[in-house]
């Protein structure tokens, strides 16, 4: 029995170099984010080291860190001029586009990652978005997808942080990823890649849970589970506030 275990361990060790003898040891400053009433974005520190069994091979090693928010359906619409006025004409519906995506690297993505590896692991922004299925109603959905990428980059929902990973002595790495205040609830997938000459040497997956807490949780659940009660509560609140202001002002100015 024991011999068998040792044998399989040895087999694993022999197999290791083929996958690359360098591995990731990583940690995160937090693995859950609570959205409370005072939530105003959050900063996540992702750090770690490269574990080596042998001296590092020639050539520099690079690190890529991605954070991907839960995917949601999205409609992209385009305005066009009809009879002198600008109106929405064509639209493209995307089944699932990430609500947040950040990719931080030690260098320019194009030079530290080959096209094939990008295609396989879906790391760069165009690859992530292209991977989502788009229901085509318009002539060329590619234009629409590109527009979404541009708009969301401007909004800060999508981020490309070139040089956003600090890499010391080819061993220690760290990156601060800022999560914006308009977060969608759900699981945020963190991926860490080590690359050498454009090839992925090792990869690791982590998950950050983003969840509403306290009052936010209560109100959100109420609105979904008891919409009637929620609707009545909104109206009672409005009527009461209207009356209270009126009564209050009568006291001040009779």
């Amino acid at each position, binding site marked *: 029995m024991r011999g068998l275990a040792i044998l399989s361990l040895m087999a694993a060790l022999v197999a290791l170099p083929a996958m690359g003898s360098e591995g990731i040891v990583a940690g995160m400053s937090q693995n859950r984010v609570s959205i409370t009433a*005072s939530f105003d974005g959050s900063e996540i520190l992702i750090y770690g080291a490269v574990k080596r069994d042998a001296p590092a091979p020639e050539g520099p090693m690079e690190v890529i860190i991605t954070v991907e928010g839960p995917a949601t359906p999205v409609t992209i619409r385009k305005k066009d001029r009809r009879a002198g006025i600008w109106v929405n004409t064509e639209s493209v519906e995307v089944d699932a586009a990430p609500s947040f995506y950040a990719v931080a690297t030690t260098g320019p993505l194009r030079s530290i990652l080959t096209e094939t590896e990008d295609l396989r692991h879906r790391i760069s922004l165009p690859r992530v978005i292209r991977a989502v299925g788009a229901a085509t109603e318009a002539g060329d959905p590619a234009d629409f997808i590109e527009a979404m990428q541009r708009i969301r980059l401007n909004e800060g929902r999508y981020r490309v942080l070139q040089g956003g990973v600090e890499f010391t002595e080819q061993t220690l790495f760290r990156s601060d990823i800022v999560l914006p205040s308009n977060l969608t609830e759900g699981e945020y997938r963190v991926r860490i890649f080590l690359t050498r000459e454009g090839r992925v040497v090792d990869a690791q997956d982590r998950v950050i849970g983003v969840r509403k807490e306290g009052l936010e949780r209560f109100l959100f659940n109420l609105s979904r589970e008891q919409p009637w009660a929620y609707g009545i509560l909104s109206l009672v609140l409005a009527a009461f506030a209207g009356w209270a202001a009126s009564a209050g002002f009568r006291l001040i100015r009779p």
Partner: protein
Amino acid sequence: MQLYLPIAEVSVNAFLLLGLGGIVGFLSGMFGVGGGFLITPLLFFIGVPPAVAVATGANQVVASSVSGVLAQLRRKAVDFRMGTVLLIGGFAGSGVGIWVFQWMTRLGQVDLFVQLSYVLFLGLIGAMMLQESLRSWFRAQKGGPVRRSHVHTWVHGLPLKMKFRASGLYISVLPPLAVGALVGFLAAIMGVGGGFVMVPAMIYLLGMPTKVVVGTSLFQIIFVTAFTTFMHAVTSQTVDILLALLLIIGGVIGAQVGTTVGVRLKAEQLRILLALLVLAVSVKIALDLLIRPGELYSVMPGVLP
């Protein structure tokens, strides 16, 4: 102070929301308009998703209208009988409006339809009001004979007459029912309370004295917007109660101040100001339609129905 809104899922400045609510409440108390046509675009502007902005805006209008009606009630400037008749017409009209809205949605041109009706109705009403109120203002300044508040026309020959004591009118219920229906129809299509259509219609079509118009319009708006809020909360779950609360706190205070200011102004001045406001919104929407937008594409969460 930043505050995260649970339904809208954005973080916004709490004082900014209080201020927005205050401005809209002020206008609401002064003119008797709900302010829905102002609050919704303002909320878009600070990053609240459109669906949440429309539904929550309606909730805020409920509060400022209650506050405004109570203030008007002290001056005995609410005609409940007229308000009820308008409301009955209103519900009928909004039923038809919702049906037309769904029909336009199926055709895929609902955006254009909504924007064009905004430009058309706001522009028409604004221009008419401005012209009329300026004329009566100049006449009042010259000290000439003041025109009677209402003139006898064919409207007064219709059957089913009813006494509206607070308005000092003895007219058929048919014109108020028709006005209510028209406003309800527009409200359902344009997603607003309809005060800006209701107020001029009451003054010019029904010949109601300006004094009771504001209170009566607000009375009617309470029910229309309460209905809208509730429908949104139940069907699309887009009412953000925290956002509404902040807008409401600003709004109810603004409405009280607005009512006080409105009482001090002359009726003509009030109408000129409302006309200018309505025209400004109309011109803004018209420009949006005519000028080439900087970004042709727009991204909306969710899939279109």
